Every structure is written in structure tokens, then in C-alpha cells.
């Protein structure tokens, strides 16, 4: 069973890698530079935005897994939720890192309280709290239940946080990080889409891999218990 899972994970990784590489080439060779005032630094967008969307996708997966866990009590949903949130957190940290680098390159400052950066900062704090919560509950089924509750409430709060940050003036740089100019010309769009699909496949591949790790850990744990008993 694990073998089957692992067989597809490498395939997903390969596909993801190929698409991401293609996206990179398209971004630098095909898409035009300087469609906005940000100039060359806008190129960061082609990975930055897909990573952001994948982070949110990961949290959405955890949200669904949480609901499914509450309805079915199946611990596999709890594992899926935890894995998804762990990866979502990783991706969120990357969003912040690349966002800050982009901000520095485009506007000369390492931080600005603009909506997307601020929202992802809060998101990082929020989902770190998820793991703190898990740490404080010893009993397995209650831990899973509480984690699921938090995953649900946390995900719902994300759009609220995002819109709230748009309510408040964001200080020095009200410019929103987004695609260059007004809309996206076709060549920009292609590079973006290719990278987007590649990044999503990468997320799925990493989820599969993490699930395999957790499954193995569980089997090992059971085996050790049996021997101990």
C-alpha cells in the first residue's frame, strides 16, 4: 500500500519539477519585463503568487479534512489536516520571505504593512498556534477534535483578516503587490499558470510524502507496542 503511494509521489515530484522549470524559463525569457513601475523585481511574482495560493490551498485542504474528521472520527483525516497545515505554514513562511525581498527590491523597504504581507504574517502566527494547541492535548482523539475545530475556525478567519487589513491604511506604501500593471498580458499569464500548476503539483507531492512518513511512524509505533506488550 505504501509502495503504491510512493510510486506516485516521485511521479508528482517529477511533473512538478518539470512544470516549475518551464515556468521559470517562461518567466525570464518569454514574459516581458517592466510592465509596471517595479521593473525587474516583478519577476519574483511568478513563484511568489503560486506559493501564496498553494499555502491557502493547503489550509483549505486542512479545513475540509477537519470537517470530515468531525463527522467520521477517522484519524486519517486528522493526520491529513496536520500534514496540510504543516506544509501550508512552510509555504506561508516562504511567501513572507519572498514578499519581503520583493518589497526591498521594488520599494527599498524590508517591511510594509500592506494587506497581503500582513495577512500572511497573521496566518503564520495563527497556524503556529495550531501546533501549540496540539502539543497541549495528550489524549489522541481529543487532540484531533480540538485541532479540527481550530483548523475550521482559523481558515474562516483568513478572508476576514485579509479584508480587515484593506480597511486600514497601510502606511507608506499603499501599492498592492499584484500582477504588473492593470491586467496581465497573455505572455505573463502563461508563465504564471505554468508555475501555478507546477507549484500545486509540488504541494500535492509533498503532502503525499508527508502522509507516507506519518503512516510509517504509526506502523512503527504499533509494532513497538506489540513487542513491548
Amino acid at each position, binding site marked *: 500500500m505504501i509502495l503504491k503511494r510512493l510510486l506516485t509521489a516521485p511521479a508528482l515530484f517529477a511533473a512538478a519539477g518539470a512544470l516549475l522549470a518551464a515556468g521559470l524559463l517562461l518567466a525570464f525569457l518569454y514574459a516581458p519585463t517592466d510592465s509596471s513601475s517595479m521593473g525587474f523585481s516583478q519577476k519574483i511574482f511568478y513563484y511568489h503568487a503560486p506559493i501564496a495560493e498553494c499555502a491557502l490551498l493547503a489550509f483549505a485542504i486542512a479545513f475540509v479534512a477537519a470537517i470530515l474528521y468531525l463527522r467520521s472520527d477517522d484519524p486519517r483525516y486528522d493526520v491529513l489536516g496536520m500534514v496540510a497545515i504543516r506544509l501550508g505554514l512552510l509555504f506561508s513562511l516562504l511567501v513572507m520571505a519572498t514578499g519581503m525581498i520583493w518589497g526591498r527590491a521594488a520599494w*527599498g523597504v524590508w517591511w510594509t504593512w500592506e494587506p497581503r504581507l500582513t495577512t500572511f504574517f497573521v496566518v503564520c502566527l495563527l497556524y503556529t498556534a495550531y501546533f501549540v494547541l496540539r502539543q497541549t492535548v495528550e489524549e489522541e482523539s481529543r487532540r484531533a477534535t480540538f485541532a479540527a475545530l481550530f483548523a475550521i475556525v482559523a481558515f474562516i478567519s483568513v478572508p476576514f483578516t485579509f479584508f480587515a487589513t484593506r480597511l486600514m491604511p497601510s502606511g507608506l506604501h499603499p501599492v498592492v503587490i499584484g500582477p504588473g500593471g492593470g491586467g496581465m498580458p497573455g505572455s505573463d499569464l502563461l508563465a504564471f499558470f505554468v508555475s501555478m500548476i507546477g507549484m500545486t503539483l509540488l504541494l500535492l507531492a509533498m503532502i503525499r510524502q508527508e502522509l507516507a*512518513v506519518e503512516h510509517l511512524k504509526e506502523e512503527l509505533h504499533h509494532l*513497538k507496542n506489540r513487542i513491548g506488550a
Partner: protein
Amino acid sequence: MTLAEAVKYVAAAYAIILVVLVAYSMFSARRISALQRELQVLEEAVDKSAKRLGGE
């Protein structure tokens, strides 16, 4: 900001992304093989002791 400087920042951003994601995936893969090995060793030990008990 000159183009040369901008290129450095863009390169840094992409480098961080690649390094983090690749490193994380590789660590996970290594974790999987280690766990599989440990599982195999334990299962063999269990089989051996089961056979020994069966023989006695």
C-alpha cells in the same frame, strides 16, 4: 535600483524557494527510507522470535 542589484534580489528569492522546498522534500524522503529500514529490522526480529517460540 539598478538592474544588476534587482537581479541579485530576484535570484535570492528564487534561490530561497528552491533550497527550502528541495531540502525539505529530501529530508522527508530520507526519513521515509530510515523508517522503512527500521520497520523491516523490527519485523524480521518479530518473525524470528515467533519462529523460535513456534519451534519450542
